[in-house]
């Protein structure tokens, strides 16, 4: 084990950057931006280091750091990373520098960047925490900068959207806080009180207790995902947030929900997760179809992408609760792929907004003729979002579907029809925005600039590479997923199903 506390650094570096940026003088804006960028690049570098040093044969938590924080309550600074969280950490590390380099707030850069870095610290902490209380703290920290980013740098309806976002997630958090505390106390028995995830996972709850506790966690995560019908904060928040906020929101923050369902929901309460699976499978599938249909009819490009997120995350929910090694691995993949593709889509929509000051589909026309490279980049990202094989989006969705088919056949059959709808809403939007003869307002639409290209290039690289060669990712994700399923098997009668003709 490396003695250097790299995971702690992943949290502390952006925190320090945030403070540094906040105390900088307003008179030197270029230093502010540079500091923020360097901090995020450093964090990104650290996350890539974690990726490189990660032992793919090891399904357990790695780089574990544990320090007692509040001894009487059994709370500790316990961080670790495994295959399920690894790529979320890397995604967070990589996407922040892209956002900071690629988008500019329209005013008060200093505070904006300070909030951004705090957000990064909160997200890193959430993905790394192995202590329920610590997780909750980070989970809540995330809310605050996001609230201010939407309310402070958003568009016309930003206050409504920010408030809605805050209230929805706070209600969810309230449930979770209750759940966390109750879990710790109920699991205590005669032993010492602990909030340690790994310790708590060993506890056996009575079926009805476990189900109540699971429910408390699940509500919080369901809001975050978001799972139908708790999703209506998302289109508003996505649409009203500044471009950078939308990218982070879609790219990283929603994953807290699906990640939480796996890490805390399924891991702590396998019996309850198994027991309620039909509910979640159904809600996941509804999300896929409903989100896609709603996306088709949107008039605002950002809202369209937002609803497409509802559909894409429905796949992850389906995959988690179908609970086969393919479906969960696919879900974890989809977490990352959605972050990359949708993040890229929001960046592109942001670039359109900067040029045209509108997000209305009806006001855009014929952009491909005047900006073919821009259109080409958009096309690749769109095809990835549609789930065309050879690009990243396909791998996750396909694994979710084929894995789910083994345990939840009819849900998978319906969910698979989501691929038709995804093509429909995106191609229709693409046609209206990019095809045709550009009219007066659109004929001077600027081509992709160098800086924009530099921002998009790494994302495009990931889109193509992951689509063609997902093995490195799968190799790292799968052992931890297998371990999780084994854990579920120990606690319930469930076993990972094998197709006919395959030795278990």
């Amino acid at each position, binding site marked *: 084990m490396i003695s250097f506390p790299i995971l702690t650094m992943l949290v502390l570096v952006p925190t320090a950057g945030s403070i540094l940026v906040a105390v900088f003088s307003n008179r030197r804006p270029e230093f502010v931006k540079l500091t923020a960028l360097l901090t995020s690049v450093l964090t990104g570098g650290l996350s890539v280091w974690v990726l490189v040093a990660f032992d793919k044969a090891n399904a357990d938590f790695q780089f574990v750091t544990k320090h007692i924080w509040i001894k009487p309550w059994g709370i500790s600074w316990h961080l670790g990373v495994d295959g399920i969280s690894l790529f979320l950490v890397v995604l967070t590390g990589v996407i922040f520098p892209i956002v900071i380099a690629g988008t500019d707030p329209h005013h008060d850069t200093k505070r904006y960047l300070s909030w951004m870095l705090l957000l990064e610290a909160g997200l890193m902490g959430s993905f790394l925490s192995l202590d329920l209380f610590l997780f909750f703290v980070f989970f809540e920290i995330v809310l605050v900068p996001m609230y201010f980013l939407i309310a402070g740098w958003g568009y016309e309806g930003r206050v409504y959207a920010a408030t809605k976002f805050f209230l929805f997630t706070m209600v969810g958090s309230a449930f979770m806080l209750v759940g966390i505390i109750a879990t710790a106390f109920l699991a205590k028995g005669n032993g010492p009180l602990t909030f340690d995830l790994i310790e708590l996972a060993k506890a056996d709850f009575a079926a009805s207790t476990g189900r109540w506790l699971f429910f408390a966690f699940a509500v919080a995560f369901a809001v975050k995902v978001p799972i139908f019908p708790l999703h209506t904060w998302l289109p508003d928040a996505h649409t009203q947030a500044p471009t950078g906020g939308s990218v982070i929101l879609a790219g990283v923050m929603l994953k807290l929900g699906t990640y939480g369902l796996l890490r805390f929901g399924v891991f702590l309460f396998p019996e309850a997760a198994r027991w309620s699976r039909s509910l979640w499978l159904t809600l996941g599938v509804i999300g896929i179809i409903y989100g896609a249909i709603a996306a088709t009819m949107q008039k605002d490009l950002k809202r369209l992408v937002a609803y497409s997120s509802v559909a894409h995350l429905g796949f992850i929910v389906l995959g988690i609760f179908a609970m086969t090694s393919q479906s969960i691995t696919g879900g974890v993949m989809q977490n990352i792929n959605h972050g990359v593709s949708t993040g890229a889509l929001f960046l592109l929509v942001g670039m359109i907004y900067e040029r045209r000051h509108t997000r209305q589909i009806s006001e855009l026309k014929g952009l491909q003729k005047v900006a073919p490279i821009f259109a080409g980049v958009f096309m690749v990202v769109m095809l990835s979002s549609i789930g065309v094989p050879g690009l990243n989006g396909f791998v996750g969705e396909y694994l979710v579907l084929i894995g789910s088919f083994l345990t939840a056949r009819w849900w998978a059959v319906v969910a698979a029809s989501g691929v*038709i709808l995804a093509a429909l809403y995106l191609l229709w939007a693409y046609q209206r925005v990019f095809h045709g003869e550009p009219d007066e307002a659109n004929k001077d639409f600027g081509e992709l600039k160098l800086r924009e290209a530099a921002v998009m290039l790494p994302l495009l690289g990931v889109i193509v590479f992951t689509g063609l060669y997902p093995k490195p990712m799968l190799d790292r994700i*799968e052992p931890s997923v297998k371990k999780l399923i084994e854990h579920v098997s120990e606690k319930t009668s469930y076993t990972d199903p094998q197709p006919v003709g395959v030795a278990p």
Partner: protein
Amino acid sequence: MLNVVWLIPALPLAGFAIILVFGRRLGDPKAGYLATLMCGGAFVVAVGAFFDLLSKSADQRQHIVKVFAWVPVGSLKVDLAFLADPLSITMCLFVTGIGTLIHLYSIGYMHGDPRFSKFFLYLNLFAVSMLVLVLGENMLVTFLGWEGVGTCSYLLISFWHERESAATAGKKAFVTNRVGDWGFMLAMFFAFQATGTLSWVGVNSAAHTMAQTTATAIALFAFIGARGKSAQLPLYLWLPDAMEGPTPVSALIHAATMVTAGVFLMCRISPVLNVASSYAPTLIAIVGAATALFAATIAVAQNDMKRVLAYSTISQLGYMFLAVGSGAYTAAIFHMVTHAFFKALLFLGSGAVIHGMHNEQDMRRMGALRKVMPITAATFIVGWLAIAGVPPFAGFWSKDDILLAAYDKSPVLWAVGLVTALLTAYYMTRQVIMVFYGKARWHDHHEEQGAHGDFEPHESPAIMLLPLVVLAGLSIVGGAINLPFSHTTERLATWLEPVLGTHDSTTAKIPLAVIATAIALIGISASIMVYAKHKRAPIEPEVLAQGWYYDAAVSKFMGGPGREAFEGVAWYDANVIDGAVNGVGRLVRGTGQRIRTVQSGNVRNYAAAIGVGVVLLLAWFVVVRGNL
């Protein structure tokens, strides 16, 4: 060559990559030559692989080349691997062969287009996808190619995207194909669950131990996929519209190669189809025969030169499915190959006509073009005789094989096939007469064409005529690959036997062949009577011109109730679900204001309220439940 079979898709891929980076610098025509060279290189490798395979004994003709592990998760192990066997190499040969000719032709056809190099970029990507499709060692690699060709088809149909109709047609093709893709995906899932593998060899070799219902499910879901890609009822709608793309695209993708992918798929899983319930192949045969007849009736009344050929393609693909459903897989592949020859020829010929007519596609404004375009006319006539089923042209032999198999399956299917053959001969003759014979009607429209100055149709450049001549030659002699005289002359059947098995017929071949030939001649004569000699008025009812109003009905449904339903969902989301949320918000706010204990709208206070609630809930949990 078998070990480097991956080069077959890799060469066009290299072409794609080079044009992607240097396309603009290469420009017109260098990008075109590069793309053609890459496709031609793939053909050379395919020929090499063919001879390598031929030198092995029949049961050894199967070679798998693994490139890398692609999607390995648990029991699912999918490699990016290629399978070289008689079926895939046959497909490769005609895909790369015809592909190269069409690439070459395109250099002339697309000359002067501002997006010249982009066209070849897409064309090479299409070649890659199509070759991955046919060479795929497992269902997922084939699916990679399957979706790839669909994407390229979309990009190429909407190539002239400034035109609204082209953009819409591209989208329609993609979305309709996705309906089929859904079927293909489910076929994969069933196969994986039943056999634990996605490899074609694995699935097919497990076919005999498979439950019959599973085999039926795989076959029927794959058939949904096939219907999307190969434009069969009811998913054929996208193909006539796909004619919005440049004509070489129509020839390559929408006639010769991509649209045959569905037939290929059904042949690939033929061992599974053989063990499926008997209604599965019967259904396939019926859908094939029905599509063949249905599309032929529509072709009779079309005036757009390319749309006639589009409906004709749908009709001919119907024949291939009739063969598949009748268990005559070799006949399906045979017809696929000959059809690729003569339909590519006909499309390229129509492209030459359209090119020479300054983008005029309406046959009512053509006529007597054989005088100004002698080579185009001569080659087109060869294509016409081949598709009409006149011996000894290629189409005669392959169509005859299918009709024979259909007769074995059911005389009714045979009769439907025969009526289709009659109509085919009839509408193709009509087209030839309208375009190349009769009065030169383009003079009548001279004024409308005034913008072009002196309007005179002209013959195409040599680079476009060369492919026409080669394809005409193949359309004449193509039948020689599988002559029905003895077992040794049935070369294609023997070659494909290790993969597709045999189909033995006891029916006497000669009487059926005579009837089929007679039917073709009747169709041709009837058409000459109507269109050349004007003895009878043409029968072109509006209902046929409008394709039985099927497309219109679907569009009306999609634009009407379909759209309303979608809008209903969006409305429901905005007003009911979100309305409930806002309602709760207002309620809380209103109550708060009345009680005047909370300052409403302030997030901090909501949070505080939540905090209090949390504590209460917590107390309940710890005290009440803790005591239980």
